[in-house]
């Protein structure tokens, strides 16, 4: 890859960092892990810069790298016997949230109760706003699989969040 394309890649990556951090926070149970995940992905993306064709979606490529890195980490932790609990475990995570911060906590706790496949689809489609087609491509699954996983995840979230009342005015 020529120096010009590399400059372009680094500039576009820098602009993407906030979204990548948001995606990582939607995936990881522990806040500290989120930036670790982004760092891993950035380093990997730069080492494999020749695999990105300038002009194609950089964000999809990065989400895919992050997805793979995260799945590897989850598997490794499973093998090491580490069990990660949500920051504040609770049976019923939130029925009547009082303010936006408390609501955010309730949402994150509910996310933590989903399985990894469900968290991925929710993060890509509902948090990052990817179209179904892009999200399915990132995950290497058919669109039908994506939408049914998304439906199950949303049903679970609706149940956990008590009908999604939202923030009280």
């Amino acid at each position, binding site marked *: *890859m*020529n*120096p*010009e*394309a*590399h400059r372009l*890649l*680094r500039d576009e*990556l*820098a602009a993407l*960092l*906030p*979204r990548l*951090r*948001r995606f990582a*926070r*939607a995936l990881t149970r522990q806040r500290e892990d989120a*930036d670790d995940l*982004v*760092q891993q992905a*950035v*380093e990997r993306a*730069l*080492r*494999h*810069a*020749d*695999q990105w*064709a*300038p*002009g194609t979606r950089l964000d999809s490529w990065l989400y895919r790298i992050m997805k793979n890195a995260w799945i590897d980490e989850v598997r490794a932790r499973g093998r090491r016997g580490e069990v990660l609990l949500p920051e504040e475990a609770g049976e019923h995570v939130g029925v009547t949230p009082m303010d*936006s911060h408390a*609501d*955010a906590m309730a*949402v*994150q706790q509910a996310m933590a109760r989903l399985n990894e496949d469900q968290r991925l689809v*929710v993060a890509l*489609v*509902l*948090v990052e*706003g990817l*179209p*179904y087609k892009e999200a399915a491509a990132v995950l290497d699954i058919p669109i039908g699989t994506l*939408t049914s996983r*998304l*439906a199950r995840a*949303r049903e679970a*979230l*609706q149940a956990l*969040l008590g*009908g*999604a*009342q*939202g*923030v009280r005015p």
Partner: protein
Amino acid sequence: MTLDEERLRAYVDGELDAAQAAEIEAGLARDAEAAAFVAREQALRQRLQAAFAPVLDEPVPARLQQALDTTPSLPAVDAAAEPVTMPAHRRIAANAPWWAGIAAALVLGIGIGRGLLAPAPQPSLLATAPDGTLVAAAPLAQALSTQPGGAAAAGAPVQVAWTFRDRDGRYCRTFVLDAPAAAGLACREAEAWRVQVIARQDAPAAGGPYRQAASALPQAVLQAVDARIEGSALDAATEAEALRRGFTH
């Protein structure tokens, strides 16, 4: 009446076109159950977005910008002894069409533009060896094996710039391609010229009937030379002798 939940969710997610969306909206006016479903899904989506939106406004931790600034991204330069290898899924099949070599070069970021893939009697310049590494194909290999370095006539498909020996004693030559406009470095290894690096030639050739092959070599090529060269580039006489002996020794 059973709801078409999948379609309603697709509507909430903005997956439907204008006509389909209008149809749904007309239906919502008539169907309270569907309207409630849509309202709940919209509320959930908004809640999810609101929960994670603050992350976008957080200052990016220094370590992430640092990773961006310091991680090397030119494998051919930073792993000095490693040739550029084609990612497995991009290896060229043995019976690949004549433009496959150029397509490979495109993958490496040179010669962007559809015109390069248009039918033209242009033989491939690159090929993959059985081990997946890039080697020069016939016209380039021919030029590397027989052409003296220095200025060549404008329009010559390949120009050779320098010849030198690397730290393992192999002969290496830098080359400039006319089309696509690129330059690279190849080293002689077991009857083949292994392409160590290839990069787009940024500066157009200077005017006039002849161009200096050594001028305006891309940074990536210069760095690859620096990383490998043992001593100095060969002078004309030594190069001629090496050419005569077919770069064998």
